[in-house]
C-alpha cells in the first residue's frame, strides 16, 4: 500500500482534476452527485497522502534525498520541461494538510452551500482548486510550480467571484487576479533568469548547481533573482505591499475563504520559499528582506485587524499577519518553525473561517461583529470550537498556536532582537483582536431574534478541526516536529520557557483587556477609539493603501492609456488619414483636367503629336543613329 501510494502519487492531483471535468461538463445540475464525486475524489487524495506519509516515514525519505518521478512535458531544441512528482517531508506535509482541510471544507460546504443554484459549479471549482493545489505541492521544478501557481490563482479568481451577480464579489475577484499577477510578473522573470543562468529550473538540479555557482560568482545576480522570485510569494501570500486583495477576497463564500484564503493557497508562497530554500537560505541579504517583510506584514496586518468590523475581514487581516509570521520564520532560517506554523495555522484558521461562516449563516449573512452578540447559547458547538480556534491563534498553551508561534519567536530572538520584539507585540495584538471578536460575537446581550440552525454537515468538520487545533501543536512539540518530518532540527532546540511565558502572559493580558472593553463593557470602545483619534482612523481605513493604489491605477493605467489612445487616433491614424486626404485632394485637382469634352482631349492629343513630330524632325539624325544601332528593341 505504501509503495503503491508512493509510486502513484501523481494520481492525487489527477483524480480531483477528473472530478472537476466530470462535474463541470455533465453534472452541473445534479447537486448531490457532484458533491459526492468531489468529496470522494479528495478523500482518495487524503488516503493516498496518508499512505505516502507512511512511506516517507518508513523509507526515511528526507528533504535532502527526495523521491522523484518525472515525465517529459515539453522538449524542444535547447529547452526541456518535465512534469513530475517530488515526495519529501515538505510535500507530504502539504499534501496532508491540503487534502485534509479540503476534505473537511467540502463536507462543510455540503451544508453551507445547500440550496444555492451554483452548487454543482461550486464543487467543480473546489475540485479544480484541490487538483491545482496538490499539483503545486508535488512540483519538481519552477515551471511546473508556476503552472499550478497560476491555476490556483484562477480557482481563487473563480471562487472569489462565485457570487458573480454581486458587484463587490466580481470586483474583488478581478483585484485578486491582477494583484497576484503583479507578483507573478516578478516570479516569472525570476524563473526565466534562473533558466537562462543554469539551463534548468529543476529543484534537484538547482540544488546541486547553485552552491557551485555561488562559490564561483558570489551572490549578486542570484540575490536579484531571489528578490524577483520572492515577488511571487509577496503577491500570493498577501505580504505587504501586495496584500490588498486578500481582505477583499472575503467576498467569496466562507468555505472558500477557509480553504483557499486561509489554509492552502495563500501558504503557497511560503511553500515556494520553503521548496527553494536551498536557494534562499544561501543568500543572506535576501533572507533579511524576507524576515523583515514578514515581520512588518505580521505587525501591519494585526494593526488593521484591530479596528475592522466585518468578521471575515478581521480574519483576513489576521491571515495576512500570520503569513507574515511564517515568512519571518523562513527569513530567520527556521524552516521547521515555519512549516510547523503553516500546519497549525491551516487547522485553526480554517476552523475560525468555518465558524465565522456558520455564524454569518445563522444570522442572515450579517457580517458586522458589533451587530452580533450573545450567540453563545444559541449555537454552542460553534461557540466551543471557535473559542478553541481563538485560544489557538492567540498562542495560549496547550493549544497548537502556542507551540508553533513560540518556535518562530524563539528562532527570531535567536537572530535579531528587533524582529523578536515586533513578533511579540504582534502576538499581543493578535490575542487582543481575536478576543474582541470572540467576546463581541458570543457574549453580551443577544441582538438577533432568529438564529438558523447549524446543519450536521457543518458541525462535523468544525469538531474535527477543533480537535486538530488542540492536538497538532502539542503533538508536534512532544514528538519534535522538525525531527519527525525530517526538516532537520529547529534553530532553537528546546523551548525557551522565558520567551514562552512572556508571550503567554502578554496574550492573557490582551484577553483581560479585551474582556474589559468588549466583554463586560467596563470601558467603552467608542471612547477608546476617539482617544486614539487619528491612529484609529488610519488603521480603520487600512492605511489608505487601497485608495493610494486606486489613484496610481488611475494615473498610470487609465491616464497613460488615454494618452496612448489619443496618440493612436489623432497622430498615427491622423497621419494615415491625412495622407489619404492629400491623395484625394490631389486627384480632385487632376480630375479637373478631365473635362469630359472629347474634342478637347483630341486637341491636346493633336498638339502632342505635333510636338513629337517636331522633335523627331529636329533630332532626326540622332533618332536614326539609335535605330541603326538597334538599341531600343
Amino acid at each position, binding site marked *: 500500500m505504501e509503495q503503491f501510494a508512493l509510486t502513484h502519487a501523481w494520481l492525487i492531483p489527477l483524480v480531483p482534476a477528473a472530478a472537476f471535468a466530470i462535474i463541470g461538463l455533465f453534472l452541473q445540475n445534479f447537486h448531490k452527485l457532484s458533491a459526492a464525486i468531489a468529496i470522494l475524489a479528495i478523500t482518495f487524495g487524503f488516503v493516498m497522502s496518508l499512505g505516502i506519509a507512511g512511506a516517507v516515514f518508513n523509507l526515511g525519505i528526507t528533504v535532502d534525498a527526495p523521491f522523484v518521478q518525472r515525465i517529459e512535458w515539453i522538449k*524542444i531544441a535547447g529547452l526541456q520541461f518535465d512534469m513530475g512528482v517530488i515526495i519529501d517531508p515538505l510535500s507530504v506535509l502539504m499534501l496532508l494538510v491540503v487534502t485534509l482541510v479540503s476534505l473537511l471544507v467540502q463536507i462543510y460546504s455540503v451544508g453551507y452551500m445547500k440550496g444555492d443554484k451554483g452548487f454543482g459549479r461550486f464543487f467543480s471549482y473546489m475540485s479544480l482548486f484541490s487538483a491545482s493545489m496538490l499539483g503545486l505541492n508535488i512540483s519538481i521544478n519552477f515551471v511546473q510550480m508556476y503552472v499550478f501557481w497560476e491555476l490556483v490563482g484562477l480557482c481563487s479568481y473563480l471562487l472569489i467571484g462565485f457570487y458573480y*451577480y454581486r458587484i463587490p464579489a466580481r470586483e474583488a*475577484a478581478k483585484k485578486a487576479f491582477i494583484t497576484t*499577477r503583479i507578483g507573478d*510578473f516578478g516570479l516569472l*522573470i525570476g524563473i526565466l*533568469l534562473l533558466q537562462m543562468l543554469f539551463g534548468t529550473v529543476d529543484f534537484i538540479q538547482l540544488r546541486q548547481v547553485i552552491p557551485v555557482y555561488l562559490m564561483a560568482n558570489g551572490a549578486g545576480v542570484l540575490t536579484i533573482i531571489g528578490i524577483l522570485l520572492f515577488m511571487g510569494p509577496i503577491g500570493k501570500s498577501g505580504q505587504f505591499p501586495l496584500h490588498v486583495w486578500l481582505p477583499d477576497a472575503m467576498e467569496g463564500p466562507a468555505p472558500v475563504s477557509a480553504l483557499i484564503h486561509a489554509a492552502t493557497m495563500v501558504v503557497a508562497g511560503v511553500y515556494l520559499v520553503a521548496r527553494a530554500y536551498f536557494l534562499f537560505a544561501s543568500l543572506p541579504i535576501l533572507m533579511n528582506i524576507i524576515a523583515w517583510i514578514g515581520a512588518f506584514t505580521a505587525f501591519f496586518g494585526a494593526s488593521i485587524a484591530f479596528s475592522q468590523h466585518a468578521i471575515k475581514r478581521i480574519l483576513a487581516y489576521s491571515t495576512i499577519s500570520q503569513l507574515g509570521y511564517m515568512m519571518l520564520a523562513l527569513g530567520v532560517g527556521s524552516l521547521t518553525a515555519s512549516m510547523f506554523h503553516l500546519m497549525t495555522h491551516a487547522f485553526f484558521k480554517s476552523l475560525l473561517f468555518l465558524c465565522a461562516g456558520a455564524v454569518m449563516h445563522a444570522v442572515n449573512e450579517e457580517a458586522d461583529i458589533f451587530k452580533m452578540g450573545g450567540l453563545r447559547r444559541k449555537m454552542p458547538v460553534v461557540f466551543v470550537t471557535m473559542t478553541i480556534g481563538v485560544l489557538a491563534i492567540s498562542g495560549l498553551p496547550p493549544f497548537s498556536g502556542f507551540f508553533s508561534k513560540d518556535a518562530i519567536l524563539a528562532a527570531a530572538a535567536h537572530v535579531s532582537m528587533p524582529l523578536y520584539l515586533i513578533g511579540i507585540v504582534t502576538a499581543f495584538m493578535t490575542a487582543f483582536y481575536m478576543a474582541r471578536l470572540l467576546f463581541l460575537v458570543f457574549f453580551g446581550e443577544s441582538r438577533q431574534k432568529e438564529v438558523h440552525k447549524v446543519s450536521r454537515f457543518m458541525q462535523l468538520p468544525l469538531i474535527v478541526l477543533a480537535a486538530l487545533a488542540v492536538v497538532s501543536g502539542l503533538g508536534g512539540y512532544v514528538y519534535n516536529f522538525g525531527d519527525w518530518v525530517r526538516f532537520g532540527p529547529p534553530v532553537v532546540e528546546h523551548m525557551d520557557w522565558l520567551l514562552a511565558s512572556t508571550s503567554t502572559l502578554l496574550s492573557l493580558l490582551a484577553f483581560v483587556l479585551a474582556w474589559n472593553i468588549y466583554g463586560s463593557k467596563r470601558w467603552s470602545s467608542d471612547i477608546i477609539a476617539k482617544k486614539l483619534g487619528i491612529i484609529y482612523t488610519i488603521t480603520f481605513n487600512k492605511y489608505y493603501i487601497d485608495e493610494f493604489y486606486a489613484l496610481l491605477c488611475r494615473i498610470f493605467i487609465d491616464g497613460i492609456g488615454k494618452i496612448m*489612445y489619443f496618440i493612436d487616433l489623432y497622430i498615427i491614424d491622423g497621419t*494615415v488619414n491625412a495622407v489619404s486626404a492629400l491623395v484625394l485632394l490631389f486627384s480632385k485637382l487632376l480630375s479637373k483636367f478631365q473635362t469630359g469634352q472629347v474634342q478637347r482631349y483630341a486637341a491636346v492629343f493633336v498638339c502632342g503629336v505635333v510636338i513629337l513630330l517636331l522633335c523627331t524632325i529636329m533630332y532626326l539624325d540622332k533618332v536614326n543613329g539609335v535605330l541603326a544601332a538597334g538599341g531600343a528593341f
Partner: protein
Amino acid sequence: MDFPLLTIILVIPLLAVGLLMFIPPSSFKSVKVVAATAMCISLGLTIYAYVTYDSSIGGMQFTQSIPWISDLGVSYSVGVDGISLPMLFLTNVIGLAAVFSSWNINVRPKEFFILLLILITGVMGTFVACDLFIFLLCYELVVIPIYIMVIIWGSTKRVTKEYAGMKLTIYLLMGSAFMLVGVVALYLQAFPAELRTFDIAALSNAHLYGTLSQSFQIIVFFLLLLGFGTLLSMFPFHTWSPDGYAGAPTAVSMIHAGVLKKIGGYGLIRLGLLILPAGAKFWAPLIIILGLANVIYAAYIAIVQKDLKYVVGYSSVSHMGYVLLGFAALNTISLTGAVANMVAHGIMSALFFAVIGYVYEKTHMRSVDQLRGIAHQMPRISVGFMLAGMSSVGLPGLIGFIPEYTIFLGLFKVYPFLAMLAVSGIVFTAIYILRVLQKVLFGPRDYGLDKYKDAKGAELVPLFLLGTVLVLFGLFPQLLMGVINSGVAPLGPFLQELNNVPSLLVTLGGIW
C-alpha cells in the same frame, strides 16, 4: 509523391465553391451545409497530415511539384514543414469555425460562403506554397474577398464599414506593393538569367553563393518588413487592425485575426529570415523595439477601449508584438515560441471574435458600457469568453502560456532588460482582459437582456472546436511544440552563424 494530399486539401474548398454556383441562392440551408462539409473534409485531411507528419525527419513533406511557367522558373509546388503545418492546421480549424459562426447569415448567404471559401483557400495556399510566385498569387487572392465581405456584411460603429473595408484593403495592398518590389528584386538578383527560379528552397540557398550582397539583403529585407509588418500589424502600421476588425463580419474578423495576420509572421520567417539572413539580423534590433511598442502600447490602448471588438483588436496587435519579439530574438527557442504564439493567438482571437459575434448578432450591442452580466442569460457564450480571455492572459493549461514563455526565454538570452519590459505585458493583458470580462459577463442580472438566448445548435461548434484546441494544446503542448521544433531546430547552426553578422546596432555604433 504518390498521393497529392495538400493539393486535395486546397482543392476541396474550391470544389465546394464550384458546387455552390449551381445551388439556387434561396436554399440557405444547403449552401451552408455544402460549405461546412467542405471545410470538415479539409480539416479532417489536415489532421491526417498533422498526425502522419514525421517530426523525427522534419523538412518538407507531402511535397508535390509541377512545372508551370518554366520560362520564368515558376512551378506549382506545395509542401509543409514544421513551421507551415501548424499554420495549415490553424487555418482549417478557424476556417471550419468561421463557417459555423456564420450560420445565421441570411443576407446573400451563397455569395458570402463562396467568398469565405475562396478566402480560406487563398490563406491555405500561402502556407503550403513552396514557390514564391504561388505564395504571392494566393496572398493577392485573399485581399479581394475580404474587401467585398466587409463592405456587404460588415457593421458600422465608430467607423463605417466602408471606411473599415477600404482601410483594411489599402493597407494590405500597400504592404504587398512593398513586398512585391522586394520579391522582384530578389528574383532578379539571386540567380543568373538562365537559372532564375521562384522556388523558395532554391532562393534560401542563394545567400550561400554570394549573389545576395549584405547591403542588398538589408534593403530587400526592409521592403519585406514593411510588407509583412503591415500585415502583422506592426507598430506603427497597426491602425488598420482594430478598425478593420470592428467593421468586418464575424467570420472575416476570425480569419483575419486568426490566420491572415499570421502570414506576416510566417513570411518574415520563411522569406525574410531564411532567404535574407543578413538583412534579418541587421533589422532585428528595430523589430525588437517595434515589437515592444506593439506589446505595451497596444495593451495600454486596449485598457481604455469600450467596444469589445476594439479591445480584441488592440489585444491582437499586442499579441503579435510577442511574435515580432520571438522572431527578432533569432534563436531556436524564441522562433519556436513565435510560431507557437501565432497558433495560440490565432485560436484564441478566433474564439474571441466568435463569441463577440454571437453577442452582437443577438443583442446588437458590443459596448462594455451596455452589456452587463450576460453570464446570466448566456452561460455557454460566457464560458467561451472566459476560455479565450484566460488563454489571452497566458494562463498555464491553456494554449497561450508555453508560447509566451518560450518567447520570453529566447528574448532573455539576447536582450534581458527589454525582455523584462516584454514580460510586463502579462500584467497589462490581465488588466484589460479582466476589466472586460468582469463588466460584460458578471454583475447583477440585466433583465433587459432576458429576451436574448444563449448560443445553441450549430453555433456551439466553433466554441467547442476552438475550446478543445485551446485546452488540448495547453495541457499537452508537446503536440504543437514538437512539430514546430522539427521545423525550427534544424535552423540552429544557421542561426548560430548569424551571430557574427553585424546588426543595426553595430552600424549605429559606427556612426557614433
